[in-house]
């Protein structure tokens, strides 16, 4: 039987691994290539890398952090793909076919698109035609305002006119392979996923749904996997703070009899 997936998200700002809260506050969490080795050993099912740098300036040769920072996002992805043997999704700053091709060439298995798809849904179609639906993840940033789920573009800063269920229909029709649901309200809150939101989306979607935003304890993974139809649970902050996080969370879920891959610490 197909297993539900546990996916650590790595947010990279100017080449550094960071934490986010309500899409706003960032704190440096260290070297992204070291992080991926840990996440591999702990048995992650796949990884999502999002480049959230503003602008294109990566020049931050700081010596005070005691490790050499690999400042270019793509060179980080290339290094990561050489040391880890699991699927990698890469998102952020993809606005044309060339951007997508570059990322797939250096080792990404899938690409995640957000703003560019909202601005031009036909972009999804051309991506699917060129690279196949299986590698197109559409990421949606959602904020609950006055009891209505609104879709935001540009890293959560700009509200769009799309209705949530309407947008799911459109992205499926245009050939998206998966959808990643981010709750802006819950981002970094540690208060759990927005289960109502996940229920709406996972009942509607005919492609796999990945939940993201709000995990503060292992129980939150359990809630989403047992109370909604999502195919995967993703989280950022919690996986980077706790030692053996992925292994421990999988162990928790496995003991609760959830359908996940058996927890294992992998020697690499």
């Amino acid at each position, binding site marked *: 039987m*197909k*297993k539900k*997936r546990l996916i650590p998200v790595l947010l990279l700002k100017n080449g550094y691994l960071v934490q986010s809260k309500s899409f706003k506050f960032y704190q440096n969490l260290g070297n992204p290539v070291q992080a991926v080795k840990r996440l*591999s050993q702990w*048995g992650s099912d796949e990884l999502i890398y999002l480049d959230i740098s503003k602008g294109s300036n990566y020049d931050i040769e700081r010596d005070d952090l005691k490790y050499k920072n690999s400042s270019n996002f793509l060179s980080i992805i290339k290094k990561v*793909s050489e040391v880890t*043997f*699991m699927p990698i999704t890469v998102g952020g700053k993809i606005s044309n076919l060339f951007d997508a091709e570059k990322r797939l060439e250096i*080792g990404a298995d899938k690409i995640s698109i957000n703003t560019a798809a909202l601005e031009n849904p036909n972009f999804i179609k051309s991506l699917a035609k060129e690279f196949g639906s299986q590698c197109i993840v559409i990421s949606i940033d959602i904020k609950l305002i006055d009891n209505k789920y609104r879709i935001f573009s540009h890293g959560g800063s700009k509200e769009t006119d799309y209705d949530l269920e309407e947008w799911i229909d459109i992205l499926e029709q245009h050939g998206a392979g998966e959808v990643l649901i981010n709750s802006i309200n819950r981002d970094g809150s540690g208060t759990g996923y927005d289960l109502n939101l996940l229920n709406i989306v996972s009942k509607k979607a005919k492609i*796999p749904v990945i939940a993201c935003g709000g995990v503060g304890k292992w129980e939150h993974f359990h809630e989403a996997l047992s109370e909604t139809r999502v195919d995967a649970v993703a989280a950022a902050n919690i996986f980077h703070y706790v030692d053996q996080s992925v292994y421990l969370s999988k162990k928790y879920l496995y003991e609760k009899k959830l359908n996940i891959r058996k927890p294992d610490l992998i020697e690499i």
Partner: protein
Amino acid sequence: MTKICILDYGSGNVGSVNNLIKYLNYECIVSNDIKEIENSSHIILPGVGAFGAAMQKIKKNIPIDTLKNEILIKKKPFLGICVGMQVLADKGEEFGEHDGLGWIKGKVIKLNSRILPHIGWNDIIIKNNSAIFNGLDKHRDFYFVNSFHFDVQEKNLIIAETEYDQNFCSAVQKGNIIGVQFHPEKSQKTGQILIKNFLNLK
């Protein structure tokens, strides 16, 4: 001596397969060159994307007569991964009907499942024993990404099946020709065991 040739017809995950084989310390080359294919001991055809597009690129970029001679006549171990497995079929139905290599009888058709693509870790149910499954007693989960599956005509060639709202063929073997629907290069330890087993085939 084991010398692997990974065929590169411009479809996706050649790099990941190459990374894994290097990591396992085997000599490996990514090439479509006739000489390299002839000099190799094992041949791998990776793949992602759609059947028709893959076949078109294979016909354009790979010397098929050389490949046939090395695999069908000289019987070198061959591994097709994902679409690289599907093209072994006579025909594929993704985006219209297309001819495959026709080395194993059958057709590639759409999965009958509620949620597609089938993405993630799923286990294989071994139907016929094969040396490529050696040591896979504990680890049976592989990473899949597919909406289509190979409906193999001669059922005795199916060496493993996988369940996703329906059972489908996840590994097929006809002598030295092996095809797997999953991605061993993305399946961590389980994938490494399977690839090692394949490279140990003579």
